[in-house]
């Protein structure tokens, strides 16, 4: 230990100029990395007339939040935030719930098909969504939902055309199914690290399987669930593909897919577009800055297991 400290200590002194170089490189690269966002923000703060007159690469004659205020009402941003909320909240909760059930069953009890089942979920999550979109689109047009509408939860998301297509319930469903794969994989790895003796002790005490899930295992998984919830919020929020193709009504789309409408309406006004894109991005940036640790842990939980 002391030998190692001495070695690194000596190395430190010797590579001092290298440290300077390292920091210089990192500062320049990090600055380059931030340019696109800073430039978008700068453009959004400038009136369009100013940029047309002086070009976009110029010093500002005025800076204000008018573009944000205008796009907020013109593009009905709050309305699209709400659409997103309708999809994201149930999407995250259900994906985590279903994944925790499977993960619990597969990691705490041994079935013959444990590994095959986990592989199926994991592989399903890795498929490019475009592989399944065409049949899925027709499936969504073919499944009538009046029969299942009486189920709890489903009834909260009525379908105005009796189908899964063009409905929140359909978008939520595909997110849940797709994301359950990833969450199952992560949670089952996590649950496997919890001592199996806990199960046996509880079973011997006469606790049912559901009680063990609910009262013993789930509380122990809170850290993993929090990390996954943060990550899944961002992923579902950022979805463009599913809502673009499975939701026909532009007005019902969540904000990320609605960006496509925004482009159609204001394509000549880059300043307004910049403000709109930044407004669409702000919630995920806030979540990241506030729950950074959770976010990164969610990502790495899925990958660092050997």
């Amino acid at each position, binding site marked *: 230990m002391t*030998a190692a400290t001495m070695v690194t200590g000596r190395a430190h002194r010797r590579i001092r100029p290298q440290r300077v170089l390292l920091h210089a490189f990192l500062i320049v690269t990090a600055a380059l990395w931030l340019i696109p966002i800073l430039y978008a923000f700068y453009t959004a703060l400038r009136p369009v007339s100013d940029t047309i007159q002086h070009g976009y690469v110029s010093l500002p004659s005025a800076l204000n939040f008018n573009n944000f205020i205008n796009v907020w009402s013109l593009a009905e941003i709050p309305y699209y935030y709400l659409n997103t909320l309708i999809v994201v909240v149930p999407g995250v909760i259900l994906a985590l719930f279903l994944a925790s059930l499977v993960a*619990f069953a597969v990691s705490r009890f041994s079935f013959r098909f444990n590994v095959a089942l986990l592989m199926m979920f994991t592989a399903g999550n890795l498929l490019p969504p475009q592989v399944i979109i065409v049949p899925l689109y027709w499936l969504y047009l073919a499944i009538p939902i009046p029969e299942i509408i009486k189920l709890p939860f489903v009834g909260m998301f009525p379908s105005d055309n009796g189908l899964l297509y063009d409905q929140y319930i359909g978008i939520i469903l595909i997110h849940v199914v797709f994301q359950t794969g990833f969450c199952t994989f992560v949670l089952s790895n996590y649950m496997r690290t919890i001592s199996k003796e806990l199960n046996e002790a509880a079973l011997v005490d006469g606790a049912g399987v559901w009680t063990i899930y609910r009262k013993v295992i789930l509380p122990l998984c809170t850290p993993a669930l929090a990390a996954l919830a943060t990550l899944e919020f961002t992923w579902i929020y*950022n979805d463009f593909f599913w809502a673009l193709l499975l939701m026909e009504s532009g007005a019902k789309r969540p904000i990320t897919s609605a960006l496509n409408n925004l482009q159609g309406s204001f394509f000549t006004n880059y300043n307004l577009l910049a403000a709109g894109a930044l407004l669409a991005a702000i919630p995920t*940036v806030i979540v990241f800055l506030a729950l950074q640790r959770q976010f990164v842990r969610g990502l790495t939980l899925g990958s*660092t297991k050997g």
Partner: protein
Amino acid sequence: MSAAVRHRYSLLTRRDKIVLALMVGIPTILDLVFIWAPTIASIGLSFTNWRGIGAITAQNWVGLRNYTFLFTQYLFFWPAVEHNLVWLIFFVCIATPFGMFLAVLLDRDIRGSAIYQNAFFLPVVLSLAVVGFIWELLYAPGSSGLIDGALGLTSQTNAIDWLGTPGLNLWAVLVAASWRQVGYIMILYLAGLKSVDPTLREAAAIDGANEWQTFFRVVFPVMAPINTVILVVTVIESLRAFDIAYIINHGKNGLELLSTLITNNSISEANLIGFGSAIAVVLLVISLGPIILYLNRVFREES
């Protein structure tokens, strides 16, 4: 082990077994119906000329005709394959190694490491649609764009239309997509580096290895599992590429990708269900490589 399993089973009541069956059964059925059934259906539909009207009958069966047309006559297929390949090679050779390089730099004990990490990671939390929007601002031609503006390419004659020029726009989009990919890989790799047993490095340092020798001879080999994950993530992300190309020009005019050809042919612009499905099958077959590699790596010890 198996004795313990049997023992545990005997403790389960009938009710417990039903609960467990439901816990596994419901998500499994959903996964089968909404992911695996469509996957199989894609394969089946690719042998038909179904256009989405009426039932599919034996008359719709066209055998391999969709595939022969796709491989020999469809103008956009090989360009799309090429663009996907360029995308993959760019990610594998540039974006991913750069992300790994940043991770290695940031893994040491340096001041402000968290700030650098945040700067590189910020684009990862943005959707690819927003990334496309932001880079449209940078790439806009002439005085409307940052790049042309900064390079003084603002007249009619010398302005570069980065996103509107086939042959150029793919590279422009790759830079934008890499902006996001690099941070993603950096974070994954950084987590991997942190999990490497520090005594390995100490031992290497005592043996007189310099930093690069330590990394390539000691750290990189022990990180074999995470290297596979990184590779698979990179390949899968390249095959999935869609959003950014769609936002920019619906995946046309030099930005054709297998993913955009599928939706354009079968949903957005035409209803050639069978033909689009044949493209989906090509994408599926390519994707199976990295998926199997991943499953093999991750589940090896269990089976």
